């Protein structure tokens, strides 16, 4: 993993001292619209760059005002510990992400991070299928990159689900790390036509499945893989309040009762989840 001194030049300045072990003020060092309404941001956050693991998220404050009020959670896309930079990838879907998309290199950013659980890939996994729907690709991108560096020889299959060709991105990076990269689009404009779960049978050979995406997609994968003898882990989303485990606002239903996406999650054993509610 090479650090990118040029792109992250601003990141080379002295970092703002951490506000605490989990609360940082960083600077935007990279802001690029890589596809329509899809942005990649790099933040100078040395501690986060050192500590964040695939699946974990950052909880961003968007403005100093009261609307939007709450922070917004985003999975970590990857980290450059040498530069002290952590990156996210996000899609503009509402007010908060619109404000975020307006930030420019040099702007400050207030971050709680790294938060939540990470993907745990057992040592014996030789072949891992990564199945990301839409921006669900983000934590899996990080996972692919980290595993490639940490476990030479591991075989990665990457399945990228999207509505159409223009919502498929960063495939070049993924191809560097993965033996097989498949795009699946609803309109067939890139790769195969259909939805990710339609192709789940092709993941049969994997020692583990790691996935992330909309709840209907996860529900379908849950059904298909129900009796497979391999771990199936998923990164989930939820409306979040604190991000710290205090408000109990972000729970999902599991076989052991309600669990917090921000603390026990976002990465869960998919089979433990009851995804009937909500949709």
């Amino acid at each position, binding site marked *: 993993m090479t650090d990118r001194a040029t792109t992250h030049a601003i990141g080379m300045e002295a970092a703002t001292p951490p506000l605490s072990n989990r609360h940082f003020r960083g600077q935007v060092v990279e802001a690029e619209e890589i596809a329509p309404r899809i942005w990649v941001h790099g933040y100078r956050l040395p501690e986060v760059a050192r500590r964040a693991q695939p699946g974990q998220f950052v909880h961003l404050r968007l403005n100093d005002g*009261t609307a939007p*009020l709450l922070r917004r959670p985003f999975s970590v896309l990857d980290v450059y510990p040498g530069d002290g930079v952590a990156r996210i990838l996000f899609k503009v879907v509402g007010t908060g992400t619109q404000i975020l998309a307006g930030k420019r290199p040099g702007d400050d950013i207030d971050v709680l991070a790294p938060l939540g659980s990470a993907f745990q890939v057992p040592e014996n996994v030789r072949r891992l299928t990564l199945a990301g729907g839409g921006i669900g690709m983000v934590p899996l991108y990080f996972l692919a990159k980290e595993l490639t560096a940490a476990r030479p020889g591991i075989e990665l299959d990457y399945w990228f689900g999207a509505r159409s060709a223009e919502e498929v991105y960063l495939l070049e990076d993924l191809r560097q790390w993965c033996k097989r990269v498949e795009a699946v689009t609803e309109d067939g404009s890139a790769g195969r036509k259909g939805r990710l779960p339609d192709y789940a049978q092709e993941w049969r050979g994997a020692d583990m499945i790691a996935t992330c995406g909309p709840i209907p997609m996860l529900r379908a994968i849950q059904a298909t893989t129900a009796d497979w003898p391999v771990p199936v882990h998923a990164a989930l989303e939820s*409306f*979040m*309040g*604190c991000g*710290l485990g205090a408000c109990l606002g972000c729970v999902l239903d599991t076989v052991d009762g*309600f669990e917090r996406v921000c603390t026990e999650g976002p990465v869960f054993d998919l089979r433990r989840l009851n995804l009937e*509610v*909500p949709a």
Partner: protein
Amino acid sequence: MSAPATGTNVDMQVTLGPLKLKNPVMTASGTFGYGTEYRELYDPAILGGVFLKALTMAPRPGNKPWRIYETPSGMLNSIGLQNVGIEEFFEKKEPFCRELAGKGTAMCANLAAQTVEEFQQLVERLETTDCIAAYELNVSCPNVKKGGCQFGTDPTLLRELVAAVRPGTKRPLIVKLAPQVTDVAEMARISVDAGADIISLINTFPAMAIDAEKRRPILATVTGGLSGPAIKPIALRMVYAVRQAVDVPIIGMGGIMNWKDAAEFLLAGASAVAVGTANFVHPTTPVEVLEGLQDYCRRHRYARVSDLTGALELP
């Protein structure tokens, strides 16, 4: 009179009848867990007090998701009093409460129950630990079908509840009022008559959000409680109204985001304030409120922060 807060000549201590706080900044129930969740961000022992997450006798799973949603300058929640129950509280959470209590932070239990008897049982059980500084009766949670809300909106039930709980403890008894009443001052009067030492307000407002495209309510419980800056003007008015109606001290809350908001609550008549939703937005808000109030007192030449209470000048 106690020593002034460190590094300043402003006396930050406040005396709320039987409850003494080293400073007037508290955290609101349900927004600060049991105090442990924020430890990595700052030392909660700097707080004047902490309202613990609501406790019930039995553990409660809480409501189905979705439980929270953002609204203009506010948020809805429908947690449904999820909590570990009183026994697991003793096993797992009490030690940290004891630690904070030992450092002079008033740990206040927020009690929720469906019957007068359960409220009494909660008090009885909590009397067995000396780390609890006061009881706050949560008669105003809008998020459970049968969860105490009727106590907060029915004057007769409220009077009976407070009168029934009062003899069970010599500790300060705080009644947390529901805002969805015609006359909040009257509910305060009833609480005080029946034995409350302190009034805290406001709890969240019953409210609702709808997903127009899906044509469905967003929260699984359909309605939830509105908190945050959106309700601050309503909360301020209620604190002001209760201040005219009763003589006991008031703990004000509802949308406090910074020291200025806190000062407004004190001026309107509160003796202490609790930070709620702001803990989610900017977790060090209580620290900044405390510093800001000290600075405000210095600038306005108040020797004691308690001099701010009710110091509003009317036109």
